[in-house]
């Protein structure tokens, strides 16, 4: 089977507008989550990880007029611009543009929003990104709830393995909007403190916003590189908004990815889990990881740094994992104090140096969806 590699990445988040700035903040256990008092978004105070639009506009000026683009578009364009520059592959008719988002430009549904409501159609967003960089191919949008970002990586790998493409640029993004804040708030799913994945005192999610991008290619890069070696995306067939009590879909996704990658549980050095900090999600993950005999593998959720960035989260979190592999550093699972799940899991409590050759990224979401992808560092 065709081998597939990740060659460049860029994160645009409240912690910075490059992967390096983001990783530096994570190393220092600095979180993007702050208290917001913005009644235009939610009547009560809330915690969230929100990008300062003035700073974003300043950074965006070298690309275009900030007035002409929505906040999400500016985040996605800025991120993808960096990845394209770093990737050193030409955009050709063998290059796919893959976009991951759950809600896209959803705020344009509000009649008070200055942008046209037509931009709420995800293909309209995709075409603006396509034409900005001059991609030749029809953009492919993955919109599969909270697994979208990591599912996009699995999709890119599969598409490249068919031989139909040589490179895929993935850009994933979502913003904190009144739409999602009000919805999760109606679900009583929003934490009254910055979210605390796997903690005994966790009580819900914190929302965040980010854009993340990578270049995925069949051309083996020079030097050390990261290969995508297995993936799986299985449904719980249990409930549309609640995770399976047995972690069935996540367990099956992990098994499918491990089988394809031909790796056993002992070969996995680190897990970048979903860890939303809802009672049921974190418990479900602990059950699935135990069923897969991964309970001793060091694990983190980065939701404590960014909040839940929805369609961006899977890719954003995988990129943090790539930097773990490059630097052989495990990053702290922020917000963890006392373990609050019924099964043992090995939460990373402090930044530590450890060899990371193979890592597993997982995510789960509404609709009963789950995705697992395994990455391996290839030494030169």
């Amino acid at each position: 089977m065709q081998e597939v590699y990740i060659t460049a990445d860029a994160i645009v988040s409240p912690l910075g507008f490059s992967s390096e700035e983001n990783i530096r903040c994570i190393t220092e256990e600095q979180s993007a989550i702050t208290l917001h008092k913005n009644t235009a978004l939610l009547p009560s105070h809330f915690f969230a990880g929100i990008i300062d639009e003035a700073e974003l506009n300043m950074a965006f000026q070298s690309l275009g007029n900030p007035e002409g683009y929505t906040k999400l578009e500016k985040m996605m364009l800025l991120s993808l611009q960096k990845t394209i520059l770093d990737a050193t592959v030409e955009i050709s008719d063998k290059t796919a543009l893959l976009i991951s988002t759950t809600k896209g430009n959803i705020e344009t549904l509000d009649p008070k929003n200055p942008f046209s409501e037509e931009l709420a159609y995800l293909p309209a967003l995709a075409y603006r990104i396509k034409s900005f960089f001059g991609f030749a191919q029809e953009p492919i949008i993955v919109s599969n709830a909270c697994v979208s970002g990591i599912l996009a990586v699995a999709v890119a790998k599969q598409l490249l393995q068919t031989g139909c493409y040589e490179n895929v640029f993935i850009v994933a993004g979502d913003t904190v909007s009144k739409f999602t804040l009000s919805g999760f708030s109606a679900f009583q799913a929003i934490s009254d403190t910055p979210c605390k994945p796997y903690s005994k005192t966790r009580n819900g999610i914190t929302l965040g916003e980010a854009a993340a991008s990578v270049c995925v290619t069949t051309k083996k890069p020079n030097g050390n590189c990261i290969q995508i070696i297995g993936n799986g995306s299985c449904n719980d067939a249990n409930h549309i908004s609640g995770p399976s009590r047995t972690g069935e879909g996540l367990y099956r996704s992990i098994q499918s990815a491990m089988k394809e990658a031909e790796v056993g549980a002992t070969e996995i050095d680190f897990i970048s889990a979903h860890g939303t900090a809802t009672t049921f999600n974190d418990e479900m993950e602990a059950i699935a990881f135990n069923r897969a005999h991964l309970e001793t593998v060091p694990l983190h959720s980065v939701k404590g740094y960014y909040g839940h960035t929805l369609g961006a989260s899977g890719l954003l979190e995988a990129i943090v994992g790539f930097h773990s592999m490059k630097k052989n550093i495990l990053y702290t699972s922020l917000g963890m104090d006392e373990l609050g799940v019924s099964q043992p899991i090995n939460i990373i409590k402090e930044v530590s140096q450890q060899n990371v050759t193979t890592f597993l990224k997982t995510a789960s979401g509404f609709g009963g969806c789950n995705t697992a992808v395994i990455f391996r560092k290839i030494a030169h």
Partner: protein
Amino acid sequence: MKKSTYIQTFCLIENNTVVLNGKELFASKLSPSFSAFAKELYRELGFRYPKFFKMDHLSKLTFLAAEVLLQNSGLSETDKKQIAIVLSNKSASLDTDRKHQETIQDPENCYPSPSIFVYTLPNIGTGEVCIRHGIQGENAFFVFSEFNPAFLKTYATSLLQLQKAKHILCGWVDVDKEAYKAFVYLVSEEGTFPNDDAFINKNYTNN
């Protein structure tokens, strides 16, 4: 090595009509709204699944199309539980997104509902189909400006090649205000119909 793929069964739902494998299965004599048509079809086909009535329009359409297809697929119960579901559309969940937006538009009268918000994702219909049939296979939902059978074929072929699935329920399920259309088909390594653009487009447009 590239595997050849075929279509076993296909189903089109539009204009208050259901077409199965190119033959009309049901046509409403009235010209109802989508929700009235969905209810009529549900009763006509003898489904018993009360959860259906809680679903939003996109999930109802996805559910009905998958139901007609799977009932006529000839798949064993075991095979059915392992199918992959790869769906696509243009409008994602915008039909229900607009309903959620209405509940939050007026700050003086802001009452978002969890039962609406949960449907503001296009893959929830896939989840409903999985729950109904106990399907724990691969899932993915894609959004395109128009129906893209060549892409779905590429993706389905890759799932077969990687042995992630033996049968793939592919298709298009779109609801946008009162407009709706579903065209779903079951792709396998064996089957009666060709899995090519010409055949699919002919049946997608019902010409």
